[in-house]
């Protein structure tokens, strides 16, 4: 990307030093840094334009409602949703998946039906379905992955063969392996067997243009804080007719049409699923983040990150004793690895002393770790502000860490 320097200048935190060393932030997959427009939008709201939304009959409330609802339009545009009412704001992807397990799982699936997940899910796309299984008599099936870290398509297809599967809930990009799952093929196979498909797009949306109509998804969720936006705001998109048929998730203010002690009726979507005062400031910040990402453009983002990932794989593969975990053909800017002489936590501590931030551990994906025969990995992940020099710094330091533990 030719204007990488300009992008980096938008992220104030990148000027920080860590223990006297320049910050090399390679942990964006856990949470990304925030550009100036996001920070400014949130501060501006609090300083100039803030009140509760959807209920005030005064100027401040109306303007704040407009600003918050503009985030819904932005999210609908980002995903190419047909209808802005299909955008439900949640706290994060985890809440979106819990909403799904509750409202779709209990509301639409019958005991004896099955939910399919994959062997490379984040805990947030495992636990809600386990809870549903135990409370509602749903069978939980796990589609295996190949040794390269790709979804095993024949096995996935076989899992759907008996027609009992009501929902496939699957990552669109692994937070450990960087693998993209083949969204269009997944929806084709699932729909042919009568199953709906929800994608966990927490990682994918950061790196790639998502068109929920083109991939023929039924549900898609992501979280704001990985997309250069604030924490506390996420999105669940769903097809209108499905959302209309689903019962609410949480009860409270904002989600009702009428209330009496005998009986209450629900508001239309999306408000049916948005009980209580939402994350207003965060919604406004998310709009700024989406605008920021779209101004740069996914073509430029994807090209930048593909080049970075190739560079990282080449540099890290060349270091003796390093094993790259996951060799998927279609992959994004997340690279997990192990080093023969040092545990991931020791690697992370030594990298940190050089100002280099990586993640180390099981990455909230313990079953995947077991599948890989590992307890933990170190993980470097890239964002729109990551430079090839930062990857060189990582590789050079890893070489020295291996010598340190000789």
């Amino acid at each position, binding site marked *: 990307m030719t204007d990488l320097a300009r992008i980096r200048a938008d992220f104030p935190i990148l000027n920080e030093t860590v223990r006297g060393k320049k910050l090399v932030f390679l942990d964006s997959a856990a949470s990304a840094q925030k550009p100036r427009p996001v920070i400014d939008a949130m501060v501006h709201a609090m300083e100039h334009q803030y009140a509760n939304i959807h209920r005030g009959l005064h100027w401040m409330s109306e303007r704040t409602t407009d600003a918050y609802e503009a985030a819904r339009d932005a999210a609908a545009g980002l995903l190419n949703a047909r209808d802005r009412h299909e955008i439900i704001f949640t706290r994060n992807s985890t809440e979106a998946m819990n909403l799904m397990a509750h409202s779709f799982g209990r509301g639409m699936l019958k005991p004896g039906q099955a939910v399919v997940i994959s062997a490379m899910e984040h805990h947030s796309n495992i636990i809600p379905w386990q809870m549903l299984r135990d409370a509602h008599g749903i069978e939980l099936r796990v589609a295996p992955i190949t040794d390269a870290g790709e979804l095993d398509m024949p096995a996935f297809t076989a899992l759907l063969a008996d027609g009992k599967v009501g929902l496939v809930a699957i990552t669109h990009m692994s937070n450990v392996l960087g693998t993209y799952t083949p969204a269009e093929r997944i929806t084709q196979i699932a729909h042919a067997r009568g199953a709906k498909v929800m994608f966990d797009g927490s990682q994918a949306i950061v790196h790639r243009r998502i068109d929920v109509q083109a991939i023929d998804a039924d549900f898609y969720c992501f979280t704001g804080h990985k997309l250069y936006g604030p924490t506390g705001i996420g999105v669940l998109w769903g097809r209108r007719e499905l959302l209309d048929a689903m019962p609410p998730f949480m009860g409270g203010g904002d989600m009702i049409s009428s209330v009496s002690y005998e009986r209450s009726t629900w508001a239309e979507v999306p408000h049916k699923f948005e009980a209580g005062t939402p994350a207003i400031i965060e919604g406004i910040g998310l709009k700024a983040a989406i605008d920021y990402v779209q101004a740069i453009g996914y073509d430029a983002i994807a090209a930048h990150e593909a080049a970075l990932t190739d560079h990282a794989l080449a540099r890290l593969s060349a270091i003796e004793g390093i094993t790259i975990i996951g060799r998927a053909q279609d992959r994004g800017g997340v690279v997990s690895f192990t080093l023969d002489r040092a545990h991931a936590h020791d690697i992370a*501590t030594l990298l940190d002393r050089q100002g280099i931030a990586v993640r180390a*551990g099981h990455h909230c994906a313990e079953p995947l770790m077991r599948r890989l025969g590992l*307890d*933990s990995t170190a993980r470097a992940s890239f964002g729109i502000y990551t430079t090839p020099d930062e990857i060189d710094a990582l590789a050079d330091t890893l070489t020295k860490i291996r010598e340190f*533990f000789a």
Partner: protein
Amino acid sequence: MFDDVRDLYNQTILTRGRAPQHMHRLAAFDASAKGDNPMCGDRVEVWLKYAEDGAIAETGYLARGCEISVVSADLMVEAVQGQSPADTKALFTAFRTLVQTGECPDCTPALAPLQPLSAVHKYASRVKCATLPWLALLAALDGVNPSKPASSE
């Protein structure tokens, strides 16, 4: 490049990390327990054999984790050798203070084998690595259900 981490990764830690002295399962034992750090994935299992007077006669462990948790387990085996359960618990209290604060007001000679870990207090995120094997050891001493791991979280 790493001169500033030599306090944590000192020669004792590096040497022990490469070749732990006591990492093995006890064939015959009186108590055992597991320790688990669910946030990072470190796991340890500890086995104990008591002498007739109730003191710890032999300790073994298996650990899958970072250098700090493995070396802490390895040094722990030496520190608790011949100690009564009560003295072992007191030793852990002193050790925990050492790795949390770097200070050791109640230090006894029994703590000497654990001194190589004293710099852990400068690395806040690593304190739980050092205490994990001890939590498993204490769970074994207390006869806690071995199927439920002690947790450092």
